[in-house]
């Protein structure tokens, strides 16, 4: 080392009193428009699905509770908090965000002496860059998961409009796995499903190709997967986080996929139900619909001797006698129910409790009773002419079709109603007319306007594909009868359905009327219940709104041995029935163990 090397560093001291050459950057140049700086989250748009937390490779994100946001259907109420000690600004969280509420602003300069300041909830905590629009947002067309669901094969309208063959074909393994791959496993759907099914877990099982595990997960909360996999109202899909920017996951079809793959004869082995230890207690179930079947399943597993009383000739309730075969084939109903039978549940058909067997007898012979008798009485419009013999109830006709009875058709039929049952009977009539006359002549009309019909959109679309006419927004005034024959239905334009107090009180524009020609009218404006079997014990029960029997969260009525559930308590739909039946089974077990 030379002397120069030793002395050189000291020459720098000569600059000590000079004016600095570094200056403050007065231009205050902003970062590039797509620069990745601090996060901003639109907290109102965010649903707290936690997918950002899940994808973060640095574990920089925690979902936390924040003031002003509560858990509700489709929103966990949580919001992401970011630890900038770990964030590396890779923006995977932005790219994966299901609602696209999360973005990065281009602000990256911020000084604070407290390290804790660098951990905050973007969009909730006040930051000076919150209104900054520049920064990094997810690019259109760049998606970490597919926003489109795998299309489900369906029979074409021409193939299906004369037959009752199931129109939905089901996924192949490849399609099912591709669809399952779209799930972000956020679990937002679980709370909304009335049965709180383990949805992300069974979707994961599909992804791994493990249908046995999938079946076990399904049966934890739902003993009717073939049925639900076809006709569930799938509220889960409505709240699916993918629904915000693309198609919701096909949860229902994936459930169906699992059940379809496993042959019935392997169920007991897979579900571990070969040997059930009986506990010697007996429970009677009134009604073999989804709620009764669900209770029968879970009670049988717990060791109860279960007997189901059913007024019809076969089990399934509304799933068999209300839903047409093209949506739910009978052999699929049988597959689910035969398994429940194999667990030891007995069935007695053609028996109406309250008529053939008094409820008191059940009380004496059994330790508890679960009544889930459903809604099987059609409601009438009560307009003039509705007492004509060619005015039918949709629910009665659908039952007749299930029994294979011939329907006394006409070439022109009007269906009054805009719900799923109305669509079921409309599409059933269309098929029958097509078979008999080679053409369709059915019109469905309802109070609700286009777009707000209570039926599922696809039901309306498919009915139209099958050449049925759907003409919504009309209120029935009169069924025109001439010389004893129905000539048509006179309707008036419906202006509004509910009054200012929110009560059902439709207002019509009487200046705007028309007549739907018809020789036969089918009413489908809702169903009522027949609980006359409780007449003798009525004074011991409490009744809530619309004559519903009041029950505890365990579905126990004021009479301790009587549990009540299904459509007469909640719903109406299959999945509520299944959930009710499961809860009632647990309630009955609790009640009988405490006795």
């Amino acid at each position, binding site marked *: 080392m030379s002397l120069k090397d030793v002395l050189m560093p000291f020459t720098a001291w000569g600059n000590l009193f000079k004016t600095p050459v570094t200056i403050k950057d007065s231009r205050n140049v902003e970062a590039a428009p797509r620069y990745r700086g601090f996060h901003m989250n639109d907290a109102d748009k965010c649903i707290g699905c936690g997918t950002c937390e899940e994808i973060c*490779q640095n574990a920089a994100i925690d*979902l*936390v509770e924040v003031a002003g946001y509560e858990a509700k259907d489709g929103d966990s109420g949580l919001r992401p908090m970011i630890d900038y000690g770990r964030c590396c600004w890779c923006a995977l969280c932005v790219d994966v965000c299901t609602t696209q509420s999360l973005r990065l602003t281009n602000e990256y300069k911020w000084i604070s002496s407290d390290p804790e300041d660098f951990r905050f909830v973007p969009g909730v905590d006040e930051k000076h860059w919150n209104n900054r629009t520049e920064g990094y947002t997810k690019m259109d067309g760049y998606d970490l998961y597919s926003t489109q669901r795998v299309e489900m094969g369906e029979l074409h309208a021409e193939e299906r409009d004369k037959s009752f063959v199931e129109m939905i074909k089901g996924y192949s393994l490849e399609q099912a796995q591709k669809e399952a791959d779209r799930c972000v496993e956020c679990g937002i759907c679980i709370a909304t499903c009335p049965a709180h099914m383990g949805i992300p877990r069974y979707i994961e099982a599909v992804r791994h190709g493990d249908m046995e595990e999938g079946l076990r997960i399904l049966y934890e909360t739902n003993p009717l997967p073939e049925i639900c996999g076809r006709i569930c109202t799938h509220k889960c899909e409505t709240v699916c986080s993918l629904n915000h920017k693309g198609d919701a996951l096909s949860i229902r079809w994936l459930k169906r996929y699992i059940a379809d793959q496993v042959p019935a004869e392997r169920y007991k082995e897979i579900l571990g139900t070969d040997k059930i230890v009986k506990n010697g207690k007996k429970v009677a179930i009134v009604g073999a619909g989804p709620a009764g079947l669900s209770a029968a399943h879970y009670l049988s597993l717990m060791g109860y001797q279960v007997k189901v009383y059913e007024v019809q000739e076969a089990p399934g309730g509304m799933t068999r006698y209300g839903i047409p075969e093209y949506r739910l084939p009978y052999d699929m109903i049988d597959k689910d129910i035969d398994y429940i039978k194999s667990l030891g549940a007995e069935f007695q058909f053609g028996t109406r409790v309250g008529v053939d067997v008094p409820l008191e007898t059940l009380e004496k012979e059994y330790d508890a009773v679960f009544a889930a008798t459903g809604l099987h009485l059609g409601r009438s419009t009560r307009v003039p002419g509705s007492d004509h013999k060619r005015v039918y109830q949709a629910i009665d006709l659908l039952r007749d079709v299930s029994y294979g009875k011939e329907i006394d058709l006409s070439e022109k039929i009007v269906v009054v109603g805009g719900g799923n049952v109305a669509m079921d009977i409309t599409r059933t009539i269309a098929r029958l007319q097509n078979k008999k006359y080679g053409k369709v002549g059915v019109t469905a009309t309802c109070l609700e306007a286009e777009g707000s019909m209570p039926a599922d959109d696809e039901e309306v679309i498919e009915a139209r594909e099958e050449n049925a006419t759907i003409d919504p927004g009309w209120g029935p005034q009169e069924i025109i009868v001439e010389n004893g024959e129905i000539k048509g239905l006179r309707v008036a334009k419906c202006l509004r359905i509910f009054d200012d107090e929110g009560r059902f009180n439709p207002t019509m524009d009487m200046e705007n009327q028309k007549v739907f020609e018809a020789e036969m009218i089918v009413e489908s404006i809702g169903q009522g219940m027949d609980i006359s079997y409780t007449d003798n014990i009525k004074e011991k029960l409490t009744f809530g709104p619309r004559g519903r029997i009041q029950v505890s969260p365990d579905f126990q009525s004021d009479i301790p041995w009587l549990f009540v559930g299904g459509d007469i308590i909640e719903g109406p739909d299959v999945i509520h029935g299944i959930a009710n039946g499961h809860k009632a089974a647990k309630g009955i077990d609790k009640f009988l163990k405490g006795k």
Partner: protein
Amino acid sequence: MKEIVNRLKEKFPVTAEIYQRDDLTFVTVEKKYGVDAVAYLKEYEGFTHLVLLTAVDWLEEGEFQLTYLLNNPKAKHDIGLRVRIDRETAEMQTAHHLWPAVTTYEQELNEMFGISFPGSPRQGHRFILDEAWQGPPPYRRDFDTKKYSEETYFPRPGRSKIDPSEHMKKKLYPEGM
């Protein structure tokens, strides 16, 4: 470019050629010809400038792909010479004698992909990773970033996380199912 590739083919067996643009071509040769082919392109075809040397992890195929991207400043042409090497042994002849900068690239690939270049200076010396780095080479595709950060860095005090579906259960249906 076609003529260059044809001349290259006379010297070395070329297993793949891609004419990406008029001024950009990729050719693949076997590992044993890799460095010689690069030297040939530099010395005889005017590709005197090394743009970069990089690797791609073809995990499923059990191979790494090395790309020597070379530039001919006169012709304004680029050629990418590709070599596939076994992922398990992960070893390649050094090319540091051709350009001093290769040493740096080889040091980087050694650290980030775990590919060794015997004879190259600074192999095994830290490049950009922390001295305390304990994990496997982080550019390998089977490197689990999240697992590594969870195992290596302790959580910041005061942090807590809530699972959305568990939280919704607690708030919306505490009785469970």
